[in-house]
């Protein structure tokens, strides 16, 4: 069981749903699905995607992922009342960020020039070196805590929150700003396309006729701290981050384990750490990418493990799969639902898959919820689960 109670005192988010928590809630309430065509760079792969609209013209010197991260990060620290002087006083503030794209030097133009022995500028390498999001943010804000990037593929955003909890629990940090960020980029688009898991239309999580995922981009950050730290700073508690657990499938590089053993372990351990039983989970914000394999594994386990009272939904039909940001975007949306006591419908769902036997939330609902579970699955057989409590 967790001994340290950890709370969320600030959240920030940018995705296809909007550039703030208010815009995100507005879009979700209106049931907006902002799916569009890819226009960020030349690409012959004609698959729809969820693009975030940056409020200002993109900077040529900054990676797009870092721009997305900056927006969500500043919203989160602003809500949590983390001031410039906090970085100069005795508070140990750390940053942990999940990403996939920002961890790779994948600038095609630079690489083409390098191959042809005619590099004009090493700017893209400098940009990459400055693009380790956590290290850059720690440096920019003069924080004294650690800055670490988590590169656990699609569960990175959740795992960053888990690391943040460990840092606070072990008194390595007083405050941790944890989250994830990823941009739409040709490498994952071509890669996911080669795996045959990109949908030609709007994705349909848990639906019988689901045919793949839509890639998306965005960022989300959460400010985590002990209640005592928050009280001292006069920061408002938004939700409790009750527990985090993760387990490996040890099965396959790209396919989730069919018996969902790793995911089951992660969920059971997170329940145990939070001292909860399975009936106390009011809703699950599932990974739910709308691929055949992911939704079958998740859905069948949920059906077996949880009772009918527990609502299940995926928000990927609104945001797309934002890779390293997905876990943290899901976490922010989970907290939003707990605060509003409201769930959006599982966009894209219309027909139950008999192989899963589960109907997710198929219309938006007001309801009383105290505890919610957010799950993330990733390449490499990673399964992570986080439980949040309403304040």
């Amino acid at each position, binding site marked *: 069981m967790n001994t340290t109670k950890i709370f969320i005192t600030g959240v920030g988010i940018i995705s296809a749903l909007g550039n703030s928590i208010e815009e995100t809630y507005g879009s979700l309430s209106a049931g907006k699905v902002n799916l569009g065509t890819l226009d960020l760079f030349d*690409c*012959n*792969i004609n698959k729809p995607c969820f693009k975030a609209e940056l409020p200002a013209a993109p900077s040529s010197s900054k990676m797009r992922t870092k721009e997305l991260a900056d927006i969500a990060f500043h919203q989160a620290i602003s809500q949590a009342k983390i001031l410039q002087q906090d970085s100069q006083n005795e508070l140990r503030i750390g940053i942990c960020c999940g990403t*996939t794209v920002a*961890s*790779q*030097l*994948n600038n*095609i133009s630079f*690489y*083409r020039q*390098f*191959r042809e022995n005619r*590099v004009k500028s*090493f700017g893209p*390498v*400098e940009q990459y*070196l400055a693009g*380790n999001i*956590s*290290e850059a943010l720690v440096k920019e804000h003069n924080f004294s805590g*650690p*800055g*670490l*990037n*988590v*590169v*656990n*593929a699609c569960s990175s955003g959740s*795992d960053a929150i888990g*690391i943040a909890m*460990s*840092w606070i629990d*072990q008194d*390595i940090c007083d405050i941790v700003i944890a989250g994830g960020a990823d941009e739409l980029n*040709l*490498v994952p*688009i*071509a*890669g*996911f*396309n*080669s*795996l*045959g898991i990109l949908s030609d239309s709007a994705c349909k999580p848990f639906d019988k006729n689901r045919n793949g995922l839509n890639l998306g981009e965005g960022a989300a950050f959460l400010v985590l701290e002990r209640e005592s730290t928050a009280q001292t700073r006069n920061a408002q508690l938004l939700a409790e981050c009750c527990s985090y657990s*993760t*387990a*490996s*499938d*040890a099965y*396959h*590089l*790209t396919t989730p384990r069919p018996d969902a*053993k*790793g995911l089951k*372990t992660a969920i059971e351990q997170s329940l145990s750490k939070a001292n909860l039983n399975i009936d106390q989970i009011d809703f699950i914000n599932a990974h739910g990418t709308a691929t055949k394999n992911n939704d079958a594994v998740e859905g069948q386990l949920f059906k077996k493990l949880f009772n009918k009272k527990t609502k299940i939904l995926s928000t990927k039909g609104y945001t797309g799969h934002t890779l390293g940001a997905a876990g943290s975007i899901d976490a922010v949306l989970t907290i939003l639902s707990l605060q509003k006591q409201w769930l959006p419908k599982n966009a894209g769902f219309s027909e139950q898959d008999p192989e899963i036997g589960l109907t997710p939330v198929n219309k938006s609902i007001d309801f009383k919820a105290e505890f919610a579970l957010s799950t993330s699955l990733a*390449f*490499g*057989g*990673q399964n992570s689960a986080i439980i949040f409590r309403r304040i």
Partner: protein
Amino acid sequence: MELLGKGFANKDDKVKNMRRADNFSKMAVSASIKAVTDLDTKNKEKNISIILATQFGPHVTTFKFLDNLLDYSENSVSPTVFSHSVHNAAASYIASALEIIGQTLTITSFIDPLKQAFILADAWLETYQAEKVIICYVEEESAPFTESQLHCNFPSYSKHCFTTGAAAAVVKKGSQIKIPMEVTNPFTFIEEL
């Protein structure tokens, strides 16, 4: 923390059942297998976690994927190369090879990733989230990075890491290992544990 075993690998190491894997993953698995020689990972010891730390990750494989994009087309790239270019592929291979079902984490930092891995391992051991942790450090040199070093402002720590190899240590709770303020050379640090 207390050391239970350590292992090292280079790009020439051969690993069974990993024909399709890239060198980055092969080195990570080889070093980890050597490090866990005395552990019974497949039967009794289930509460083992993995932390893979790296500065630059499998960028040789990323460049191979970019070769695919440039030489063929966006529609005919190799899914195998793509899946190996994902940073956590190596940790996934370690988990599969050793049948480890605990936590599996891959972290990057340009400043001091191995130190961060040890700090996190210590936190997991102290809070009983793991009984043992395999910490694996991997880097791979490549022409673009070697050339870029001459023109770009790489963090000073990086200068120790332009090499190809993997080093792994298995640790449990104890007081033998003290985490230093800075791990100047990750390979030497594990060697001298």
